[in-house]
């Protein structure tokens, strides 16, 4: 089977919402353009197809992604990643996460870079509206002889303001690599081989290092260090979700080249139905000196098929599911639409005096928006909601009173 056929088959398989698929599966297929700077060693323009598959469970997540580029007249497998993330139960607002990744980047058959990553982080939540995290880990390149393990430390904070989530983080990367004649750290006389493996991991774009006779990398190493300061915004407006991010890299010129100093991008996801979304976006991403990836501009357009539950957000916003927003819209003819926001759950129910206390299941619209339209009279109603068959609770923002059954009930005045 040719690579072209393999790519086509994978793409088709992901687009078909297979009935046998697990209810906890989500797939995504994007196609777009990659534009790299000249002299990067990569094709300057490529058409890329990027399928991904994700399996979410309450305490762990499995992700597999890949991409294929169309260069000239041929398809070429470009990279693949497999990830496992584990999340601990929450206690006193604290929980821990562990993540492991294995990835391969292949520009062609003879030029590949593998890497194993392991990260750990501790998260603290403040009333589900804000949080901070601290973490660290090791990225271990394989088959890239000139780069040592990369030590990664990171920290950040996030807060939710209305429908928007703002986050900021600082990630520090430190690793050893072979010195070059341009080394700013004072090491001189060392040079890397001009062979292709050296190019892929040199940090500087391939072709820019001045070749010299090969020398043992271990004899001539220097510490590289740089930090990425990033900010991001996630904003949900009805079925539209917008994710925007930008960053600035701090480091010496070898690690933070001019074209990787600043970057930014945005992706919009529009949920056509509860399980189908259109994804489009574009921007610029920085280079990766540890793996020799140059800075690139990108534009993508794709679709996302989501089975229950839809993947959680990139930021670990919540560990304990909760309804964050309760809204009511008049649907006319004595009907009202109840809208709740609750992320990371599979089932949301509401009941009250207006349903004769019969639980009614809400329908998910988008990632965390749940809706139901019911006939509800003007007057005072009592109301409860529950997530994933948990405890019945009053919706946020409503007055509440004891229900007599070891719980509270919301009091809702409908005007």
């Amino acid at each position: 089977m040719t690579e072209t056929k393999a790519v086509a088959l994978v793409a088709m398989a992901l687009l078909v919402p297979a009935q046998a698929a697990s209810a906890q599966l989500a797939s995504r297929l994007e196609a777009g353009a990659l534009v790299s700077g000249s002299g990067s060693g990569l094709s300057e323009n490529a058409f890329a197809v990027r399928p991904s598959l994700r399996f979410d469970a309450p305490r762990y997540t499995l992700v597999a992604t890949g991409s294929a580029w169309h260069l000239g007249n041929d398809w070429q497998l470009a990279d693949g990643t497999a990830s496992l993330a584990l999340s601990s139960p929450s206690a006193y607002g604290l929980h821990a996460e562990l993540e492991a990744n294995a990835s391969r980047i292949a520009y062609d058959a003879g030029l590949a870079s593998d890497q194993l990553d392991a990260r750990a982080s501790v998260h603290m939540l403040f009333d589900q509206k804000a949080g901070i995290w601290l973490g660290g880990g090791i990225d271990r390149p394989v088959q890239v002889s000139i780069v040592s393990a990369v030590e990664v430390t990171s920290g950040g904070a996030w807060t939710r303001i209305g429908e928007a989530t703002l986050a900021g983080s600082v990630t520090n990367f430190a690793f050893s690599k072979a010195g070059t004649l341009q080394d700013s750290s004072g090491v001189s006389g060392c040079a890397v081989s001009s062979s292709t493996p050296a190019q892929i991991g040199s940090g500087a774009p391939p072709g820019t290092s001045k070749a010299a006779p090969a020398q043992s990398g271990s004899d001539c190493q220097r510490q590289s260090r740089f930090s990425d300061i990033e900010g991001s915004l996630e904003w949900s407006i009805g079925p539209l979700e917008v994710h925007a991010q930008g960053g600035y890299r701090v480091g010496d010129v070898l690690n933070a080249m001019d074209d990787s100093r600043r970057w930014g991008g945005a992706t919009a996801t529009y949920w056509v139905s509860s399980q189908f979304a259109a994804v489009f976006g574009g921007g610029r991403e920085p280079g990766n000196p540890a793996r020799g990836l140059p800075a690139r501009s990108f534009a993508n357009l794709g679709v996302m098929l989501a089975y229950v539950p839809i993947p959680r957000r990139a930021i670990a916003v919540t560990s304990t599911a909760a309804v964050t927003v309760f809204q009511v819209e008049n649907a006319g003819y004595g009907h009202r639409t109840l809208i709740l926001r609750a992320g990371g759950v599979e089932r949301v129910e509401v009941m009250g005096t207006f349903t004769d206390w019969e639980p009614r299941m809400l329908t998910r619209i988008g990632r965390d928006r749940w809706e139901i339209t019911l006939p509800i009279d003007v007057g005072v109603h009592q109301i409860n909601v529950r997530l994933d068959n948990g405890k019945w609770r009053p919706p946020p923002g409503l007055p509440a009173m004891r229900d007599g059954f070891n719980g509270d009930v919301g009091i809702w005045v409908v005007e």
Partner: protein
Amino acid sequence: MTGWTPRRAHFWRLLLVPLLLVSPVTAPAEAQQPSLLSRLDASSRYQIEVLMDSAARLGLPPEALMSKTLEGISKGAPGSRIVQVVRRHFASLREARAALGVDITLDELSAAAGALQAGVPRTSLAALHTNRKGSSILMPLVVLSDLVSRGVPPDDASSAIVSLTQRGALDSDFAGLRRGVETDILSGASPVTALDRRTREFPGRGAPGARIPVVPTPPRQETPSSTQ
């Protein structure tokens, strides 16, 4: 079969098919409550029905007791507990009616019953009713119950709400008070401190609607139902 012609069969088909189609749509609306009540054991169901009859005879809304019963069933409470809660609700409705009279809506009556069950003194209900003569006491009652459920002692909550009605507070003021207290409690303030702070912030709306309550708030030691 004698006389069973295709024509007659067609007639019965025409009659029965619409009946079959309509019956699942119309039946549940009437059969819903009996089917839910049937989830109660026979003894509990009998006691609930007796309470509902008593309520109807006293002019209290039996549907309020039915609603509380259904709530308990849906929340998985055992039958004995449901009977206990419904009985207490019945007593609260009766007491609220006695305190407020018949000149109130069913919503106000239910809210008053809820406040009484939360531990609010009966005299406070009467004071609220007197202070807001002509306007609904629904929102003050709702906020009062909410404050108590958030940990404010019933007497403190009652005093504050009665005091605000004396100062001419509007429904929007009560809603704002509730949000403010909620915010303060989430920020770490004690419920009493939060209520005290937010009540002091209320500037008052002048004399026009304000007057001294006819029924004063009782001293704390006279309210055995309060949770100290």
